[in-house]
């Protein structure tokens, strides 16, 4: 019982604080939909929780439950105070119930079925998370190692490479399978363990369940803002949450990939939304989630960099397209004239590709790792190719083009190709892209149609576009 209370509190405190923090961003603007605040709230709150732990560590204070819980309550209270409405109300926006009531019965049923399917899936995955100890090499060799040590010490202690560990001989230094990973994920596990009061190898993975709930909520909210009807948005959320690789990474909790994918997806959706409405709070939200993503995995910097082309296109479409063309030409020049191997950010960039296409095709188009997503994406892009660079879509198109380019470069032009060929990396890296790509596919479907979910600010933008 104590475990249950501690576990629930460890998730709810940052979630509530994060939700109010998101709402506070909109304190001088028309109200943000509550669903959006809840969806983004967990990631924002969890990131704030890890920042608190980092700060305490830096200050030399040992983590303990009263301090951590107190910090989160104070943060939540400040956010709540800031979130009080100061901006004039825009009039009541239609709620979900009203939106559904306006749909034909068959679509209302579709909404309910999709919602039920998401709930059933998440319930089953939660059983796996709550029952099992850590499974999967990365989980116990790269991530929870730090969480276990930091929880024991009540603070962050340094992890170094095994060579340095041997050479320095300092008993204050620790090592593991990947000491270079950022600390966010192990901090989340240590956070939960602190609330539990003990190391529990199943319950420390509660953040994975929380994220699995927050991700479809945020996706649904952004889909509604993008103009999808409630049934369509809910079906899209179900399609996303039914992806086997995504489900697998929730079930085998403890690795960072699902967090990376969620952070990138949430940042990309918010960045696109900003590109359409130019709402400053949405830009702040995108920036906060992007920064959180940087602290999840080393690759976070690469993924978040792919948001830049979209932002540039949003600010100046011509400049963005010129820059994109220049990047493509530069890469072609690199392939033609570059050295065989160029060290970059701890990796090596190769100018001669490694052919991992057969493995990639198998895992994307033949094995049921992504259901029909790849087929659907190709079909949707072929169907809607004329609007890919339309003013509203161009920013997201450029972001997705950059992200796909990143996948191509990593898979074919770096030694990571070995990981793709031996099937350890092939789906994990794509998972980072999946939520954002799913949202892009939805955008391609709904763009050009009636957009009942538009906010007044977006309607003004649409009018300006017209």
């Amino acid at each position, binding site marked *: 019982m104590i475990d249950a209370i501690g576990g629930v509190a460890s998730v709810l405190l940052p979630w509530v604080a994060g939700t109010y923090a998101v709402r506070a961003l909109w304190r001088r603007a028309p109200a943000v939909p509550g669903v959006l605040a809840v969806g983004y709230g967990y990631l924002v709150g969890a990131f704030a929780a890890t920042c608190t732990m980092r700060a305490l560590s830096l200050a030399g204070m040992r983590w303990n439950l009263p301090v951590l819980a107190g910090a989160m309550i104070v943060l939540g209270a400040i956010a709540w105070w800031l979130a009080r409405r100061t901006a004039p109300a825009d009039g009541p926006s239609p709620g979900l119930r009203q939106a559904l009531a306006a749909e*034909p019965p*068959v679509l209302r049923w579709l909404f309910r079925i999709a919602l039920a*399917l998401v709930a*059933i*899936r998440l319930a*089953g*995955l939660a*059983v*796996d998370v709550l*029952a*099992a*100890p850590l*499974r*999967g*090499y990365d989980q*116990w*060799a790269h991530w*929870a*190692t730090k969480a*276990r*040590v930091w929880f024991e*010490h009540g603070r962050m202690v340094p992890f170094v490479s*095994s*060579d340095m*560990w*041997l*050479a320095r001989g300092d*008993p204050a*230094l*620790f*090592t*593991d*399978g990947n000491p270079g990973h950022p600390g966010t994920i192990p901090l989340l596990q240590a956070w939960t363990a602190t609330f539990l009061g003990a*190391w529990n*190898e*199943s319950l420390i993975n509660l953040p994975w369940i929380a994220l699995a709930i927050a991700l479809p909520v945020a996706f649904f909210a952004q889909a509604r803002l993008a103009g999808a009807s409630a049934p369509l948005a809910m079906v899209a959320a179900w*399609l996303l949450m*039914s992806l*086997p*690789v995504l*489900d*697998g*990474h929730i*079930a*085998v909790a403890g690795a960072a990939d699902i967090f990376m994918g969620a952070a990138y997806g949430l940042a990309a959706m918010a960045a696109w939304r900003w590109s359409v409405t130019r709402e400053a709070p949405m830009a702040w939200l995108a920036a906060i989630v992007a920064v959180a993503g940087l602290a999840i995995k080393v690759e976070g910097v690469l993924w978040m960099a792919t948001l830049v082309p979209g932002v540039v296109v949003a600010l100046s479409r011509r400049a963005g397209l010129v820059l994109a063309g220049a990047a493509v030409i530069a890469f072609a020049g690199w392939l033609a004239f570059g050295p065989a191997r160029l060290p970059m950010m701890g990796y090596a960039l190769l100018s001669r590709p490694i052919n991992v296409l057969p493995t990639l095709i*198998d*895992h994307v*188009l*033949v*094995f*049921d790792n992504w*259901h*029909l997503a790849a*087929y*659907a994406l190709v079909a949707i892009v072929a*169907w809607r190719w004329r609007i890919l660079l339309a003013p509203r879509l161009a920013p997201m198109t450029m972001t997705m083009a950059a992200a796909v380019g990143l996948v191509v470069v990593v898979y074919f032009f770096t030694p990571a190709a070995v990981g793709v060929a031996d*099937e350890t990396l092939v*789906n994990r890296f794509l998972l980072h892209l999946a939520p954002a790509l799913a949202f892009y596919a939805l955008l391609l479907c709904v763009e*050009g*149609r009636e957009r009942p979910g538009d906010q007044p600010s977006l309607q003004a933008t649409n009018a300006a576009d017209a």
Partner: protein
Amino acid sequence: MSIATAPDATPSRGRWAGVAALFAGSLVVALAVAVTLKAGPRLHGTPPSIDVAGKAMQAAKGRARVDGQAIVLETLGADGVGLIVAPVAAFDADDYTRVTWHIGPTAARGTEFVMVWRTRDGRGRTFTAPIDWSSGPATIDLSRNPEWSGSIQGVALAVRGALPVPISIAGFSVRSNAWDVTLGDIVRQWLEWPRSDGRRAITQLGSEARHVAPVLPVVAGGVALGIAFLIVRARKRRLPVPTWAVAALFLAGWMLVDLRWQTILWRQHAATVAQFAGKSLDEQREADSDAPIFDVARKIRDAKRAHGGRILVLSDNAHLRTRVGWFLYPENVYYGPAHRPSLPSPEQLRPGDQVVLLLIRGIQWDAGRGMLVWADGRTRAAREILSDGTAFAMVEIE
């Protein structure tokens, strides 16, 4: 391609039924195409398979022993090859093309498998085909191999490369490629549970590599056929393509593959609960498939020794040392990089460091002299904490 996006009127029940029938029909056609592409010329396969139990096999090269129903290859021959021969009566290659060797759950990295056979017309020649295998049954489809022809007189499994751990072969089977057997195999594989051992949960469906026809392309083909039919019919009638029908076909296809995935997940959830739920952490680890590794780690963890210092877990097997290391956290554990051996030099060890030697050749514990002895003769004095023959020792540096 252009699809009209004009809003469709709410479809009638009859139109829904029509789309359902179209989906079912398209799926049947796609499945029939998949079976036809994989099947041989015969409609009925009798018998459906030729099976040989492992205990009936013999090692023509290397050393093997029979263990229950399986044969266990323990060492390779002098030429670095082990050859396990399965006694079979002659059979027609055209009728039997899908070969499966039921190999034990795992093999070490670097172990390679090759299918070997002889034919009546081959005049004593031996033919081979590499088997791409990582875990579970090793399956190879020889229907496109031109040398798999005529009357097959003998089959064998060649094992080459490294054999750090013995390999168990439970049996050999070769499936008929008749239409009915192929259809049965395809559907059976779609419904089987890909979790092949006790520990791993499913994070990707790479095991479908051994499926005769994986479900995804078949369903995608069915959906594509259905949509193509809608487009062609709409063009003929000069009407817009009904987007609701396209969406319904797509969602039906998605739901079908997801229903299969959901059943896989439910089986996984049930297995996870049965294996781990309600147990303490130690009990969970005892229930895991690598419980013997935890058993070793627990001996180290619970040994009478000083705590709070550094522990170096040294082994030639990277997985073994990493896993043992994990079980010892939150102590200050070293197990070296995963992809290269990394032995500390004697000078890098500090007094009080505890060293675990686990199936390692580069350093030995000389209990008589109270010394750790490196392969090049260097030594470091130490005190024994635990030891079990040459395979395992734990000492503290003095």
